[in-house]
């Protein structure tokens, strides 16, 4: 077998092929995208994308440890590639009440410690989940019992992120308001743990309600009334 007759040349040829693959696939994009800075908006008043809070960064760990990324993506492909824009996954409402509909860019992810683009959509895309769930209470309720929104949902319930405790004095501010089958017995309340709080803070930070490029007006616009959210 001639292939191995000269071990040294065999070895260096393999190293060369691996190097080519490594440089072309990883190092070259890294040089291009590894040092992105935030940009200023047109008035020079804001830095985009928005930075995320400390508890949102803590939530990244919960998102990683409990494997949310095995069913949920966090990337919106352009209208030319797939139907993500039509599904409404690229839509978020900005502070002026105007809808921003766009794909995601590498710059959107620069503040995240760990990036979860995901490879499976057994669940919805979460790039703009904070546009669909605007307050923590509704997210807590959803994590506690996802079957309320879709009785055949394949999403697990995350009851272990909540504790049932006896109400002493004032009821807790974050206590879950649950419909009857899930409601705690009288005198008790269900409250989120620190894990659930940081996860929800992270999810509420996922919103691309700003423009990164001036030419984004060209992206097809889907009216929000026709945009299915869930």
């Amino acid at each position, binding site marked *: *077998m001639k*292939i*191995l*007759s000269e*071990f040294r040349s065999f070895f260096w*040829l393999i190293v060369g*092929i*691996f190097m080519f*693959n*490594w440089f072309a*696939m*990883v190092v*070259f*994009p*890294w040089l*291009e*995208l*590894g040092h*992105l800075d935030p940009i200023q908006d047109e008035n020079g008043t804001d830095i985009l994308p928005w930075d995320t809070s400390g508890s949102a960064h803590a939530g990244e760990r919960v998102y*990683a*440890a*409990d*494997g*949310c*990324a*095995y*069913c949920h*993506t966090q*990337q919106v*492909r352009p209208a030319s590639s797939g*139907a*993500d824009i039509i*599904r409404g996954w690229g839509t978020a409402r900005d502070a002026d009440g105007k809808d921003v509909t766009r794909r*995601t*860019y590498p710059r959107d*992810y*620069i503040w995240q410690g*760990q*990036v*979860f*683009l995901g*490879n*499976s*959509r*057994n*669940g*919805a895309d979460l790039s703009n989940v904070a546009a669909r769930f605007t307050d923590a209470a509704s997210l807590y309720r959803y994590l506690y019992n996802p079957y309320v929104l*879709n*009785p*055949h949902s*394949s999403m*697990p*319930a*995350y*009851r*272990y*992120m909540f504790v049932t405790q006896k109400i002493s004095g004032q009821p807790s501010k974050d206590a879950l308001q649950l419909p009857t089958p899930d409601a705690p017995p009288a005198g008790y309340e269900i409250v989120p743990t620190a894990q659930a709080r940081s996860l929800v803070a992270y999810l509420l930070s996922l919103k691309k309600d700003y423009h990164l490029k001036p030419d984004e007006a060209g992206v097809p616009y*889907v009216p929000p009334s026709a945009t*299915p959210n*869930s």
Partner: protein
Amino acid sequence: MATLFPTNVAPRGFSSTDPELAAIDASVRWPVLACLLTAVHWMVVGTFLLVYASSLSHPQDTFPILGWFVDLSNNFSMFTYGRVWPAAVDALVYGWASTAGLGLAIWILARTSRSPAAAPGVLMTAVIFWNLGVAAGITGIFLGYSTGTELLEFPAFASWLLWISYALFALWAVATYLGRRPGRDHIAQAWILVALFAFPWLYGAGSILLGGRPLPGSGVIQELIDAWYVHGLYTLWLAPLGLGILYYLIPKISGLSIRFGSKTQIAFWTWILFAPWTAVHDLVGGPFPAETVTFGLIMSGLIFIPVVLIGMNLVSTAFKAEEQQGHHGGVVFPFLVLAAVLFVVAGISEQILSIRSANELLRFTMFRDCDTFLWVYGFFTFVAIGAIYYVVPRLLDFGWRSALLIKIHYYMSVYGILLVVAMLGFGGLMQGAVLENPDVQVTIVTADNVAISFHIAATMCISLIALGNGIFALHLGWMLIDWLRLRVRGNRLAAEILVEPFEPVPAKTSEEAAA
């Protein structure tokens, strides 16, 4: 059917009739057996965890037991889908496939080096550390220390154990190869050596760059490195190991030389040039440089060249053996033939994903799980199981206990994997058709409802595979117990029911064929 699984009841020697090969087998007996036994253990753990994880992905009223499973996953963080699924996949990839692959690689390298191996103690140490690493990693995932990065979930302390162990394996392998006795080299050596070079490169870059704290400012590059790692692990680690074993065993068992043998080298080089580019299948449409993705799709689109050449080598040799001998040469051969065919099927699945429009349709569906199954379960597992049925009797000088159990295992695995691939492949197509539907009224709930029936079917098929693997593990245990009875207590009865599953039946003479 009688000729497909010939049995030979008379007790006889099982180690190689060539005294030189028998001496080499004896020199690596314990490390290889340790690898294979612990690998089978992880395979059983992995497939049963996979059944549990898969059953969580459909409504809880599907099966009566499911309500209990769902309660477990809702109330205990250890049993939530997002922890069990990666634990199952990692148990199969690192615990089962990599351990079995390392054991078989040692065995083939020792044999092709033509001299008894030195320092088996180094290998035993390596096996122990490797298994400790896998166990620590899987425990870490269950306890919530997962990094959340696909196939690199093991926490840093587990990665260190795997590192130490792998360094021992690799040093032994390179030393054995360089110290080989002069003679013709085997193409299997090239495949195994390229796998042994690729793994430290992949696992080093992956676990250093992504395993601990993510690199600040790296952003989407993390996911790029992960895609490179995951597909590199399939195409440069598992695939070359499996192909090395096939290139060694198929000619050995059938007694034929590889057909189209002049194509083996070009197949080798084109595979390592094009196959790792399948990583861009996970990047299409994402926030990555367009030129990287386009170039990668061109390179991975050329994967048909090595797949066709390797298919010509292996599948046609296997089919020719079947044609000449009128059967598959015992029970080892059906597993290996199927592995060679599933390699081509996995190549076709990568070829489909390298077409941009097909990729857009299938990108986020269960088709990707189908692809994973084809590499890890379909291709590699069939190679390893076939090889275990062949190798273990030679190492122990002792036969399998029951041809029936092997037959049951074979058919459960075959129907299981073919149905899983069909269900996930077709299900991915249906799910993709809904997810990419241009009608704005269609939602993720519609796609979920389409996907659920395929998830249920896949769970049932994975259960079939798991049961088959359980039977395999019990059979292996039974064999070991009887071997101990013979060796330790001198119980001759244990030697009475030896099954010879791998002996090729001599080719029919022309008179017999005419009759």
